[in-house]
C-alpha cells in the first residue's frame, strides 16, 4: 500500500495549500527532532559546559571527551553486546515458536485447541509490568536471575505475535496446502516450503517489532539483572550511568549509542518497518 503510493507520486505544482501544509510539517518535525538534536550536540560538550547555567544549544568548544569517556569506562561495550545477544536470541526464538504456533492454531486439529487458543488470548493481558513480582520469583526458582536465560526466555512467549500470525495463516487458501498433501508432502514439508515463504512479509513484521521491543526493553532486564556486566543498554544507561552523579554529556552519548542502531536501521528499512508496525497493529483491529 505505502510503497505503491510513493512510487506513483510525481512532481506536483506548489499550491498555496501545499506550501502552508509543508511549513506546518517542517515546524512540527523540528519539535520532534529537537530533543535528539539537543542530545547529540550536548554529547560534544565538555561535562562542565553540559551542566552550565544558562544552557545553550551549540557547544562553545567541540570535544569528543564524553564519547571517549564512554568507551574508556568499558561497561558500554559489554552492554552493547548483551543487548545484541538478548535481542537476536529473543527475535529468533519468537519467530520460530510463534510461526509454528500460529500455524498450528490456524490449520491443524488437536484436542483442546479452542480452549488453548482462548488461554493464549488471555495472555495478551499479561506483561512483566502486570505480573513482575511473581514472574521474578518464578525465574528466581529456576535459578536464572542474573543470566542470559533469565533475560531472554520470559520475553519469548508473546501471545500477540502468535495472534498476528494466526490471523495471517487463516487467510492462506487451504487449496494450496491440500494440493501438496495429495502429492504426498507431509505436514512439516508443507509448512516449510509453502506456508513460510508465503508468510514472509508477516514474519518480517513480527521479527522487526520483536527486535525493537526487545532492544528497548527496560523493565524486565532491570528486574532480573543486578550484575553490571550482564546489563543491556537501556538498563545499564539508566541505572549505572545515573547512579554516581549524572554526567550529562556522557549520558547523552550513551543514550545515543543505545538509540542510534535502530534509527540507522530505520532509515534504511523504513518501508518494511512502517509496513511492519502498521501490520502488527492493524491485525488487532
Amino acid at each position, binding site marked *: 500500500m505505502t510503497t505503491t503510493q510513493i512510487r506513483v507520486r510525481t512532481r506536483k505544482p506548489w499550491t498555496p495549500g501545499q506550501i502552508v501544509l509543508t511549513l506546518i510539517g517542517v515546524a512540527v518535525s523540528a519539535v520532534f527532532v529537537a530533543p535528539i538534536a*539537543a542530545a547529540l550536540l550536548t554529547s560534544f560538550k565538555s561535562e562542565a559546559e553540559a551542566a552550565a547555567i544558562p544552557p545553550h544549544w551549540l557547544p562553545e568548544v567541540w570535544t569528543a571527551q564524553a564519547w571517549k569517556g564512554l568507551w574508556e569506562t568499558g561497561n558500554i561495550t559489554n552492554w552493547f553486546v548483551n543487548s545484541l545477544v538478548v535481542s537476536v536470541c529473543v527475535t529468533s526464538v519468537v519467530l520460530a515458536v510463534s510461526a509454528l504456533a500460529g500455524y498450528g492454531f490456524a490449520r491443524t486439529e488437536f484436542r483442546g485447541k479452542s480452549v488453548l487458543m482462548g488461554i493464549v488470548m488471555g495472555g495478551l493481558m499479561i506483561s512483566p509490568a502486570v505480573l513482575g513480582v511473581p514472574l521474578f520469583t518464578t525465574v528466581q526458582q529456576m535459578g536464572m536471575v542474573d543470566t542470559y536465560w533469565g533475560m531472554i526466555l520470559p520475553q519469548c512467549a508473546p501471545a500477540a505475535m502468535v495472534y498476528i500470525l494466526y490471523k495471517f495463516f487463516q487467510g492462506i487458501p487451504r487449496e494450496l496446502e491440500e494440493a501438496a498433501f495429495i502429492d504426498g508432502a507431509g505436514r512439516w514439508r508443507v509448512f516449510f516450503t509453502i506456508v513460510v515463504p508465503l508468510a514472509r512479509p508477516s514474519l518480517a513484521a513480527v521479527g522487526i517489532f520483536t527486535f525493537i521491543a526487545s*532492544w528497548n526493553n527496560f523493565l524486565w532486564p532491570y528486574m532480573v539483572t543486578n550484575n553490571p556486566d550482564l546489563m543491556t543498554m537501556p538498563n545499564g544507561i539508566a541505572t549505572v550511568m545515573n547512579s554516581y552523579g549524572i554526567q550529562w554529556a556522557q549520558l547523552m552519548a550513551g543514550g545515543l549509542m543505545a538509540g542510534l542502531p535502530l534509527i540507522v536501521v530505520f532509515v534504511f528499512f523504513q518501508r518494511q518497518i512502517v509496513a511492519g508496525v502498521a501490520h502488527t497493529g492493524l491485525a488487532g483491529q
Partner: protein
Amino acid sequence: MTTSAHMTTGAHTALAPARARTASATATVRRKQGFQHGGWFVAPFLALFALFVIWPLLRGVYLSFTDANISGDGASFVGLDNYREALNDSAMWDALGHSAYFTLLVVPCITVLAFLLAMLAHNIERGKWLWRLCFFVPFLLPSTVAANMFQWLFTQGIGLINETFGLTTPWLTDKSYAMLAIVIETLWWTVGFSFLLYLAALQGIPDHLYEAAKLDGANAWHRMVHITLPMLRNITGLVITLQILASLQLFDQAVVMMDFSPGPELSTRSFVQYTLEQGFTSYRVGYASAMSIIFFVIIAVVALARMWLLRNREEGGR
C-alpha cells in the same frame, strides 16, 4: 475470535466453490492425516507460555494468599489478608490514582495528536518519508534514553525547555508539574506508533469514496466528517485501547525522569512502581503479588470491555 474464523472460512469457500466440492472426498481423508497432530506445532510456544505466563500467574495467585518474602521460604497462609490490606492501603490507592491520572491525560492527547500528525503527513505531497521519519523516530529510542533526554531538558537551570520558552518552571521538583513533565515526554516518545497506525488506515481508505463525494459537491470539511472519520472508527478504538493498556502500566519513564524516586511528595509513584517497591525493597512478595493480581483484574476488565464493545458494534452495526 469466532467471527474472524467464520469470515475466513466464508472467504475461502467463495474463492473456490466448485473445486472444493469435487475434491472434498479425497480432501477429507487427506485432511484427517495432514491436519492432525497439530499439537507438535504449538508445543514449543505453549511450553514457554506455560512456564513464563501461566505459571507466574498461578504462582502470583498462590503467593497473594501468603506472607511470602523474597527468599521464598517460610511462607504461611494468611487468607485474604493481603487483599484486605491492599484495599485499605491509601498509598496503593494513590499509586493507582497516579497511573489513572496519567492515563487520563495521555490517551486523549495521543489519540488526537496521532490523528493530526497522520492527516498532515498524508496530505503533504512531498517528502512523505521525511515526515514519517521525524514523527516516528522518538519511538525507536529505548524508554530510558528518551526519559533521560527529557529529564535533562526539564531540569531547572540547565534545561533547554525553560531556556527556550523563557520559563522558570520547576518541572521535576514540584508535584503540580512532575506528572505533566512525564506526560509531555510520553507524548513525544510514543505518539509515533499511533501515528503510523492512523497513517496506514488513512492510506487504506479507497480514493473513489472521496472522488464520489467531490462529484456530489462535498467540501473538504464534509469529506473529512463523513468519510475520513467514520472510516477511522475501528483504528481509533484500537489506538485508544492499546494506549489505555500501555499507559496504565506506566513505569519506565516515570522512574528514570525522577531518578528512581517516587517523585516530589510521591506524586509520580505509579501502581507498577509501588508494587515493585513492595516486592523488591520491602521484600513483601505476598503483598506485592496480591497487588499484581488486582492490577491484572483491572487490565483484564479494560481488555474485555473493548471486546464487548466490538462485539456489540458488529452485531448492531452491520
